[in-house]
């Protein structure tokens, strides 16, 4: 069954330097990004992190999968700008940039907070996608096991990842079965007749899997070996070390310049720019919702 739908959280095959790098080296970068992104709210720093991430996406040639993810995340991020601008997650007093109708207004702290949240999302997503879309899941889990991740936990993750495409395929088959019984394949009414068989099937599948696993002595003691072996080359140490240095240096720099990097009270936004930003974000989110609703209605 060719469904034509693909989930973007799987490997996009390639042979770039990022594809070939050791999963653990890449993990160091991801963890580093997470630390830095949550260390600061400065839009410029987060913007730079995003741009570095985008450059790496270019190096890995995974634009298609990356944009698929961004297509969903970006509108949500844009909505954050709108929400934060009119109700910032900041202690009062707020500085009013533009007064809208009634008690509504766009606040400087809100724009600052919205921008940092959006850029936090984009920077972290970029690097996380980079890891996931350039690494074979088995390689990732084999590497994690090497540094002491329990086998059972590893196994659970692997199986869960494998189940997603199977369920997706199953959903296609069931939807076709219901369509051939005259079901209009749209709206909420279409969901129930298709979801019940998929879930019942999934539960049965899991039950059978557990039986077949136990019959093959799953859970027995001893050292587990893996079919896939992940080699560690000097290059991987370099990549990992660079990631660690980048993170520590970044964190120290952010720590020493904390007050200078806090633009929440100093960010100068002209009313026009603020209006364009907020309305543009709202429009972006609205277009996204419209497109999604249309796609669902046409299904």
């Amino acid at each position, binding site marked *: 069954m060719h469904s034509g739908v693909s989930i973007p959280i799987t490997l996009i095959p390639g042979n770039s330097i990022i594809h070939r790098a050791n999963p653990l080296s890449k993990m160091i970068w991801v963890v580093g990004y997470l630390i830095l992104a949550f260390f600061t709210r400065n839009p410029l720093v987060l913007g730079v992190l995003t741009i570095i991430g985008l450059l790496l996406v270019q190096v890995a040639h995974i634009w298609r999968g990356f944009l698929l993810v961004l297509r969903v995340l970006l509108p949500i991020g844009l909505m954050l700008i709108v929400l934060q601008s009119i109700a910032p997650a900041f202690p009062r007093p707020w500085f009013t940039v533009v007064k809208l109708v009634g008690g509504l207004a766009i606040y400087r702290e809100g724009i600052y907070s919205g921008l940092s949240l959006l850029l936090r999302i984009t920077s972290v997503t970029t690097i996380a996608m980079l890891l996931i879309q350039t690494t074979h899941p088995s390689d990732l889990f084999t590497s994690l096991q090497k540094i002491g991740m329990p086998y059972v936990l590893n196994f659970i993750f692997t199986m869960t990842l494998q189940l997603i495409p199977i369920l997706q395929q199953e959903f296609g088959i069931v939807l076709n079965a219901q369509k051939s019984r005259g*079901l209009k394949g749209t709206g909420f009414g279409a969901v129930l007749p298709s979801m019940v068989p998929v879930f019942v099937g999934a539960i049965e599948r899991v039950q059978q899997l557990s039986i077949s696993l136990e019959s093959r002595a799953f859970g027995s003691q001893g050292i587990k070996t893996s079919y896939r072996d992940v080699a560690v080359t000097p290059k991987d140490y370099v990549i990992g070390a660079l990631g660690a240095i980048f993170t520590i240096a970044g964190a120290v720099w952010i720590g020493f310049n904390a007050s200078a990097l806090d633009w929440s009270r100093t960010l100068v936004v002209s009313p026009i720019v603020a209006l364009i930003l907020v309305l543009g974000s709202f429009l972006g989110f609205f277009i996204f919702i419209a497109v999604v609703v249309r796609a669902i209605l046409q299904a």
Partner: protein
Amino acid sequence: MATPILKVENLQHVYPGGVVALRDVNLEIKPAEIIGVIGQNGSGKTTLVKHFNNLLKPTSGKVYFNGTDTAPLTIQQMAKNVGYVYQNPNQQLFARTVQEELEFGPRNLGVSEEEIQERCEAAVEFFGLQDLREKHPYRIGFPLRKLVGMASIYTMRPAVFILDEPTTGQDNVTTQTVYRLIHRLRDEGATVICVAHDMILLAEVVDRLVVLRDSLVIADGLPREVFANHTLLSSSHLIPPQITELSLRMRTDKDASSQIYLSVDEYVNAVKKSRMK
């Protein structure tokens, strides 16, 4: 000749990604015929029958139902003409009771409530589901669940039934029931298309066999003729029923015209007759 109920002209289907599943298939199916579609896994059987109810649209070529081109119709519109019974009833059934399951199809077609109840009565009668009406479809045994799957299509009163592997997972008794039901469907005027690997079903129940190999129809004829063609069968790794195989091997060059037997009954009768001579 009567208008064929289904007609396929130069049908070709290429899946996204360039896999050619069917190339240049031509087929005519008459009303009230029982057709068996056979071939190895991946030969294009399922792809072919999915075109009959518009689950798949031809890459090129045409499919006609009762003389009308099906291309502009949706799956939902075709559902009242061609019913597709899935191999695995679990992929089809979802309701809380068998009764609801039977009502689902005709309700989608916009049939009146009175008529729906009438059809459900008829279906319960036809498939012998009297005791199961209020049961949960997942709580009844697999063979019966499969019958419920068939019954849920039966209430839609399609002119053509597509049965995907109707006898897999069935024991001897329920298999015989399925054979009888297929004949009764035909007696009620329906066309039945069986996609199957069950050679006994194909030999004893079916009027006509369509053999697919590598996305082409390589044979189309009476089961007796198709099973007699040994080269053809072995080229697509199909083995006829043992009794047919036996009668084929017992044939000598001298009496090449002698019968090929499709069932044990046929064989026994023939032997008895020859003894009486």
